[in-house]
């Protein structure tokens, strides 16, 4: 199973703050993904990358941005957090099977 780490696990922040959710992996997988999931609901793909310097938007529109400067690192940034961004954010890597991190639960007040 892939070693994939997300930090922080939980984050409570005020409206208008800039935040970065970290995702790192030690498996050397080229493909990485960000999903958004509201409680009790399905996952929605918001960003993906198929390698260094590659980033694409997913199926669900998101105000967040991502970067992929290194294979092992795929951070997600919100320039100005709003209450509508409150959700769980899940990072995944893939070598044909997608492996997920534990997620970051974000609450914007």
């Amino acid at each position, binding site marked *: 199973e892939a070693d994939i780490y997300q930090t922080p696990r939980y984050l409570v922040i005020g409206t208008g703050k800039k935040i970065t959710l970290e995702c790192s992996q030690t498996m050397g997988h080229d493909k990485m993904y960000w999903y958004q999931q509201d409680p009790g609901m399905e996952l929605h793909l918001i960003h993906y990358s198929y390698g260094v310097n590659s980033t694409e938007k997913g199926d669900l529109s998101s105000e967040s941005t991502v970067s992929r400067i290194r294979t092992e690192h795929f951070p997600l940034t919100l320039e100005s957090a709003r209450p509508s961004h409150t959700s769980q954010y899940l990072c995944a890597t893939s070598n*044909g*099977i997608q492996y997920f991190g534990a997620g970051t639960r974000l609450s914007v007040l």
Partner: protein
Amino acid sequence: LAKITQPISMDSYEGQEVNITCSHNNIATNDYITWYQQFPSQGPRFIIQGYKTKVTNEVASLFIPADRKSSTLSLPRVSLSDTAVYYCLVGAFPIQGAQKLVFGQGTRLTINP
């Protein structure tokens, strides 16, 4: 992308075998079938993947009929800790580019004592 239908919820008891069926009528030739398990406040965990016939690992079996329009995840002798949401996914694994998976609402399995 294949349209996926699976029961919203199921209930069973400890020690029973649980079978969750997923319908994917328009599955493509290159698509694999994958099942994930998710506990509250955690990321989905890979359970099993198959293309046709039967696949078995240490935690589950996956049965896929010849027409591949459905699949059944079988969990032998479930315990309380198997209470979770189970997602059936269908998708190809491109060598180039990113594989995009579409998650449905999943099946909420509750195991009772």
